[in-house]
């Protein structure tokens, strides 16, 4: 059975997601020792930067998305840029993955231990995070357990594992259907945000496949999904150790050093600087 990791990356003018994916892939290689395939629409970029191919076992090109959505990318509490956000291809993971067992991770998710290798010993066909833990323990919880006040239970598409089974195929088909009919599902599930989000699509699809109720499928990933938000700052990164300034109040930040834990670094603008320092020709 082949095992590997998939990362999706679609650049926008403000963020070099492909380079970010290379940084991410380098962590996968060091800690999990698994091959990484990149799925991207940035064909031209790859041709101009062939050196980046060394970070990936395979690069799979897909067409550019024909849906445009924008969002604010924050870098701390006040600074932000408004730019395009391409996240509509995640449901292609099933058909595009060259692996029998696949771990899909966001390009801003960094692996610092071997915990996720345990997914591959699982009998489960899909493993997803149901909860996320903010590294800033002093802050009020900012991410709810439900996709909206009256909505369904939140699942996270940041990192997930799947095997190619009939049920998982159905799951990805449903994700695609939800994406294609997002305005309906957004309305039906009372989602305030107008942008399509894979987390929401995952949550809705899992809810439906469990018979429109809480179910025991899928099981949780054998790890904790730690994250920092885009309102938090990255002070430094060195030898697998991150130093964050976590947003606490208007005049105070909390300093947090993270080491040996897998972490979702949502401040992509600050992350770009770190990536630039670590990934180059």
């Amino acid at each position: 059975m082949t095992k590997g990791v998939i990362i999706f990356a679609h650049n926008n003018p403000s963020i070099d997601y492909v380079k970010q994916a290379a940084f991410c892939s380098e962590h996968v290689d060091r800690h999990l020792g698994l091959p990484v395939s990149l799925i991207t629409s940035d064909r031209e970029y790859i041709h101009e930067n062939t050196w980046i191919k060394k970070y990936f076992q395979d690069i799979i090109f897909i067409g550019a998305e024909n849906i445009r959505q924008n969002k604010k990318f924050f870098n701390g509490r006040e600074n932000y840029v408004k730019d395009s956000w391409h996240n509509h291809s995640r449901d292609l993971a099933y058909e595009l993955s060259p692996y029998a067992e696949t771990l899909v991770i966001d390009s801003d998710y960094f692996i610092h231990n071997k915990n996720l290798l345990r997914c591959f010993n699982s009998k489960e066909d899909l493993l997803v995070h149901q909860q996320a833990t903010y590294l800033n323990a002093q802050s009020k919880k900012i991410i709810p357990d439900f996709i909206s006040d009256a909505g369904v239970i939140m699942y996270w598409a940041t990192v997930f594992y799947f095997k190619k089974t009939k049920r998982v195929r159905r799951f990805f088909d449903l994700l695609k259907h939800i994406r294609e009919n997002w305005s309906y599902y957004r309305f039906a599930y009372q989602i305030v945000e107008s942008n399509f989000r894979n987390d929401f699509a995952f949550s809705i699809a899992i809810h439906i496949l469990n018979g429109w109720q809480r179910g025991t499928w899928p099981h949780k990933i054998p790890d904790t999904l730690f994250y920092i938000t885009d309102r938090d700052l990255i002070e430094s990164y060195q030898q697998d150790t991150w130093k964050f300034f976590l947003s606490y109040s208007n005049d105070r930040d909390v300093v947090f050093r993270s080491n040996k834990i897998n972490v979702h670094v949502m401040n992509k603008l600050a992350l770009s600087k770190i990536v630039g320092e670590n990934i180059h020709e």
Partner: protein
Amino acid sequence: MNNLERGYCIFVQKHSDVDYLKQAYALGISIKTHMPDSKIFLMTNLKIPSYMQGIFDIVGDIPGSDLSAGSDWKVENRYKLYDCTPFEESIILDADMLVCSDISHWWKFLRNFNFFFTSAVHDYRGDTITSNYYRATFIENTLPNLYCGVHYYKRSPANRTFVKLIKDVVCNYKEYSEVFCPNKKQRWVSMDVSVSIAAKILGLHPQITSTVPYITFTHMKPHLQGWDNVPAHWMEKINVCCDDKANIKLGNFAQKGILHYVEPEFLTPDLLLKLESRYHASK
């Protein structure tokens, strides 16, 4: 097995604003759809229209004098079900409920008790409710947290004292309330409070309830739903979906077990029609 060994009991008294009889009819339909062999006893002071008569196997008058004259809620006579139920074992349900799936397996569990009240109810998402928003009287006065919306009663000599005391609490609610609810009173007569006072006096609550949410119901009072922004009526917050087979979803959550919908507006003519169609199709 004798047909009158087990059955479901519903109490309905004439009310100026709410058509409880229609609710009881809908509940009866839902019981017989999922459990066609079930028997239903209706205690009421209302005349039953002919189209409803096939649903209720036994109909009885409310005996004795009307204890609820002048009361809005009309629950004071409800304890009379204990004397009048034709069943050896009864599951007593509020009229504003629907049975959304087969619950006949409950009997096996319930036969271990003489009385059983749930202490843990669910919200529409299936989560056990932790809010005490409507339970201040129970918390402030350390009353056992019993819900009468769905409860089990066995005709047994062991229940005589308890039933007698429940009657006495209901009939003298104000006096009992003064003594047992000094910290927070519920001014109107409530079966939940009355039963809890009686259970506390007799020290019975460990024997008549369980926090294991096995025998339970979905309680749709709006402040119990785990929402940050709570409207006055739950139907303002989430959509109701009922397919042609009368499967009900609230806020995209499929409903199983017993749904206590609370708001009379929930039972629309369209929903009733779908319940009737499914019932007739299941026969």
